[in-house]
């Protein structure tokens, strides 16, 4: 009774409204985020009758696998799926091979030069993709790189290299230089130090960066559209289905494009800490 009160327990005018609205706000925002996803999957299993009419049904009770079977049999989904998979994977591999060694060197430069380079990398992103893409597409057309895996991989590297280099500079900066010196005293070569000491420590950062590059390439639409006439990628296939397909065909292609990424993001979300994106800025 007589214990001194250090903290005020004064009532705040916002206490009651906040406490009452909080659950509704949380449930509302969860529904807002999940509803579009629910729609894609629900419609992809819906029979034709469910999406017709002025007011399509919000809940479907009689499911059908028709659209998924059709998508893989007749809708010509396999070639776009293969193209998207191959392009995304090769782009990721090349992006790491080109950007990781360079990012290591940049991270070991004097701070003034390092920040100039990092900001320079970001400035290239301020240019509209079209400002790069139009010139690239005109040249690739002359070189016969349209409708070609290589052409699209080269284009996707344009978009991903500055970004991945930026993330990796942030990762390498956190690795103390003493470790390298210790390895070299033990007789390791500089290349050996890099491969056996520095890269393994940076593996986590490299994994997150690879994930971003893979997602970027898998989703990329603008370069794909500029560089393609008939050998579609999955995003282009979605666009084509918007134009020509039925609602269920659209939902099914969209679901096929989304499903692998949802799984990837779900399993890797513990790495997506708030600091993952901002760390590189603060250095």
């Amino acid at each position, binding site marked *: 009774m007589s214990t001194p009160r250090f903290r005020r327990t004064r009532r705040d005018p916002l206490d009651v409204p906040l406490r009452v609205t909080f659950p509704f706000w949380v449930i509302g925002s969860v529904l807002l985020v999940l509803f579009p996803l629910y729609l894609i999957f629900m419609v992809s299993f819906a029979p034709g009758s469910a999406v017709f009419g002025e007011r399509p049904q919000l809940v479907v009770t009689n499911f059908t696998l028709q659209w998924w079977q059709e998508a893989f049999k007749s809708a010509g989904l396999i070639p776009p799926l293969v193209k998207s998979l191959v392009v995304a994977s090769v782009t990721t591999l090349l992006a790491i091979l080109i950007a990781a060694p360079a990012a290591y060197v940049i991270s070991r430069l004097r701070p003034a030069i390092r920040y100039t380079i990092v900001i320079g990398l970001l400035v290239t992103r301020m240019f509209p993709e079209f400002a790069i893409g139009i010139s690239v597409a005109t040249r690739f057309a002359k070189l016969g790189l349209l409708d070609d895996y290589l052409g699209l991989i080269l284009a996707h590297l344009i978009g991903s290299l500055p970004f991945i280099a930026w993330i990796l500079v942030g990762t390498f900066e956190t690795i103390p230089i003493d470790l390298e010196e210790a390895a070299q005293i033990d007789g390791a070569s500089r290349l050996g130090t890099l491969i056996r000491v520095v890269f393994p420590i940076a593996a986590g950062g490299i994994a997150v960066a690879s994930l971003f590059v893979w997602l970027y390439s898998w989703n990329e639409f603008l370069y794909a559209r500029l560089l393609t006439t008939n050998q579609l990628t999955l995003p282009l296939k979605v666009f084509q289905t918007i134009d020509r397909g039925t609602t269920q065909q*659209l939902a099914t292609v969209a679901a096929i494009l989304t499903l692998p990424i949802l799984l990837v993001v779900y399993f890797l979300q513990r790495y997506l800490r708030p600091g993952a994106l901002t760390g590189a800025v603060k250095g």
Partner: protein
Amino acid sequence: MIGRAARGQPRSVAWVRRHTFEIVLILPLVAYITVLTIAPIIDTFRLSFSAPNAGFGTFDSYQAIFKDTVFRHAVVNTIIVALLSLVLEVGVGLAIALTLHVKFVGRGFVRTVMLVPLGVPTIVSGAVMLLIFARAGYMNSILGLFAGLIDRIPGIDFKWTNVSWTAAGGWRTLFTIAIADMWKVLPIMTLIFLAGLQSIPEDVYEAADVDGATKWQRFTRVTLPLLIPFFTMALILRAIDAFRIFELALVLGTEPVLGTYISGRYRPPANDPFTSAAASIILFGIIMLFIIMYLKFVARFQVQR
């Protein structure tokens, strides 16, 4: 230095020898960016100052697009969509981050759910919004459902007539595009603001409590000012993409934005890389202008405090 000069070796050669390892590692990236980023940008600048029959050094392409009403319409639309989606994204992103910063039962689950749109391709988010906002779409279904409930109340006669959000054009289409963009980038905005909230030390709030601050005062006088660097990061990161909006505008309705205008000029039937290049330089100018204006605004705001 004397040693090297004595051996008759220029200083630059010696520098290269000493740093061969670093140069070999960094060379592929430098070469790639030079050939496939910097050169194309210069090329596009050159294209924009050229015309099919006038050669280099002409403003024909710029004059042509400024005379084009579709282009002027696209510029206005781009600015409206970008500002609208930035306001929505910052507002809702901050609200969700504030929510996730509070401890409550099921927070881990809600946090996971909020990250989900990160894995949804932009073109898919456009396709879904098409399902939702089309005339016979799910938005009208939901609104019709609510209208039906209100209609059941005796004495009130209320019917919902279907509205086409996408095909109608005008502000409805622009609003739909902004909503689609917001849904897609909410995870990134939430993560940035969550990082900001976690960076504010607890004792600042304790000091505010001792001074008798209300919750609202804590929010406006402590939280918001300390979040300014994170606002800057979020806004600059998003503004670049918001002005470049392309897929969503292409899919949702027929309102032109600069992205679709540039693409339309380049593709058949126009087949005109010159005006297309000029329009993309204008888009770059708008992005730079926005960022410079924002940074000046923030600088003034911080001095005033």
